[in-house]
């Protein structure tokens, strides 16, 4: 790492009065009476200056992450329609969610499980595989291909939904339809994004396509930074194939990046859930085919204004995300 020109030293020369005091403080660990209060003061000054630095983030963090999570938990025990004040109803929302909400049990939960289990692990494995492949080629071509593979995730979301929509356009002039018609694979145009049969597979493909994000970059960096001598030592010790190399050397040496990538994959998968609504242009999605938990929250929160119930679903979602992340921690975390 190259050190920047430290111009602080020059500044100090013009202001020599500061020097003896500071030097005394850093050496004076012996608690003589006068110095004790001085150290005390210094400690509080340290504390204050640290607060100045951490303060802005801390305030935002509390305001937009901590309080909302606590508030969501609180609201989840109430009936709240935004007009009247929240009314405490205990666990009723959770009971309803698990026993009364047919849509949740019949569509939302199975869809979410299906979507997450496909997009999460496959997206993650694909990120690692692509990163590993990229590490096998020289820097110039790697840079270009990394850019290509990363670029879908930059616009994953609304801009891309538009492009996919044009491709999946439902009339015979739609790009996919006209191509399949010409090849004779289908006989009449398919309403891709409006069809309960096709919406989910399309969501999966589009999400996977856009899932090579931050986690992918982290894993690429991790693979490139594995100490080369480890591989050489491993070959002397009798590792034979590249597959063994990956499992015995590469992955164990980059566990922290693997974990970072895994956590990002879990969070990314949950957030990618909105794609169903973007593609079909409706919440709820046609016959709930693409309805995931995250859409269910919006449906109840901002369409039906049942904020208490929506909050209960949010809490469940946050719990699921947390549990899955903990699972990743089990797999890749370093025990200490």
């Amino acid at each position, binding site marked *: 790492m190259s050190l920047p020109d430290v111009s602080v030293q020059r500044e100090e020369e013009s202001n020599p009065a500061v020097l003896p005091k500071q030097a005394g403080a850093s050496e004076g660990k012996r608690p003589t009476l006068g110095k004790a209060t001085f150290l005390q003061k210094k400690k509080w000054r340290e504390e204050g200056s*640290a607060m100045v630095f951490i303060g802005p983030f801390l305030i935002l963090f509390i305001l*937009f992450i901590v309080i909302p999570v606590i508030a969501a938990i609180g609201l989840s025990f109430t009936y709240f329609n935004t007009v009247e004040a929240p009314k405490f109803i205990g666990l009723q929302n959770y009971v309803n969610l698990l026993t009364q909400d047919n849509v949740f049990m019949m569509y939302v939960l199975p869809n979410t499980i299906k979507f997450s289990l496909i997009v999460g692990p496959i997206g993650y494995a694909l990120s690692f595989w692509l990163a590993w492949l990229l590490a096998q080629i*020289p820097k110039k071509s790697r840079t270009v291909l990394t850019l290509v593979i990363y670029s879908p995730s930059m616009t994953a979301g*609304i801009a891309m939904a538009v492009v996919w929509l044009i491709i999946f356009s439902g009339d015979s002039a739609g790009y996919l339809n006209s191509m399949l018609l010409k090849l004779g694979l289908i006989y009449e145009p398919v309403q891709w994004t409006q069809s309960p049969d096709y919406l989910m597979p399309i969501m999966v493909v589009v999400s996977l396509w856009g899932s090579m994000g931050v986690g992918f970059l982290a894993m690429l960096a991790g693979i490139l930074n594995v100490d080369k001598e480890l591989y050489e030592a491993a070959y002397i010790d009798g590792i034979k194939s590249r597959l063994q190399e990956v499992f015995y050397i590469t992955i164990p040496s980059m566990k922290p990046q693997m974990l970072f990538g895994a956590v990002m994959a879990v969070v990314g998968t949950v957030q990618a859930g909105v794609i169903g609504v973007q593609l079909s242009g409706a919440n709820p999605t046609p016959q709930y085919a693409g309805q995931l938990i995250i859409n269910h929250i919006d449906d109840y929160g901002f369409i039906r204004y049942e904020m208490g119930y929506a909050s209960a679903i949010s809490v469940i979602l946050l719990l699921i995300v947390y549990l899955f992340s903990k699972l990743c921690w089990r797999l890749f975390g370093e025990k200490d």
Partner: protein
Amino acid sequence: MSIKSTKINPDKFHISQWKFYVILLALSTFMILPIIFMFSQALKPMDELFLYPPRFLVHKPTMENFGDLMSQTSTTLVPITRYLFNSVIITGSVVLLTCLVSAMAGFALSKKNFMMKKVIFEANIIAMMFVPAAVMIPRYFIIETLGLTDTFLGHILPLLALPVSVFLVKQFVDQIPDSLLDAASIDGANDFVLFRKIIFPMIMPALATVAILAFQLAWNNIETSVIFMNDENLKTFAFYMNTLTSKLENNVAGQGMAAAAGLIMFIPNLIIFIFMQSKVINTMAHSGLK
């Protein structure tokens, strides 16, 4: 020791790498086709958009769609340029402020000692698994309580709480040797001087990464427009794009404009990433979670 020494991160092309190229090129093609399609669609003149059967690539590229897009107004009579202006202001502020806030927090978490430091760092790691969309309802009430509905701050402030960026900066500051800071502080530099003259210049790669993340978050952000803003004049370009999707089915004329708008969303992301990609990889090497 080159009996079978590793081929990871090779210096130059070797014929044995062909299989990696084949797989990578195949997958990259899948990745980039929709993007090429977006370019091509955005540049198509009207007669090519209506062509039947449709053709993937544009033959006579034109900027017509961009011109049409710019002169559009939304159904509520807000001109497109207004949405774009809002997006630029909001994204610019979010990028600058996120860099500043996370640089300061990363510095404090890495090099300073203070009460609750461990707790805050742990909380930040847990918060990396946080999904903002799950708590839009409480956030909405907070924004309303603070009186930020229908203000630019209502767009900007919620996006600044970005735990990943603080984490990345903190990991990067960890690499700076304490001795360097100690030397400077014995020479009389206070924390602000340390931060400005030593930390800030040294964590530029991490900040480049944070800037990219913040940019993507803010530029693609729809939620704050949908939920916190009632005034159409304060909504963002991404929000406008979202309204386009509902009108796309069987509306060929709108497709060219929609693709042009998609391109406007995409290009800034691309440019920023191209300029900063080497720094990003450098930062990501320190991104490990332990």
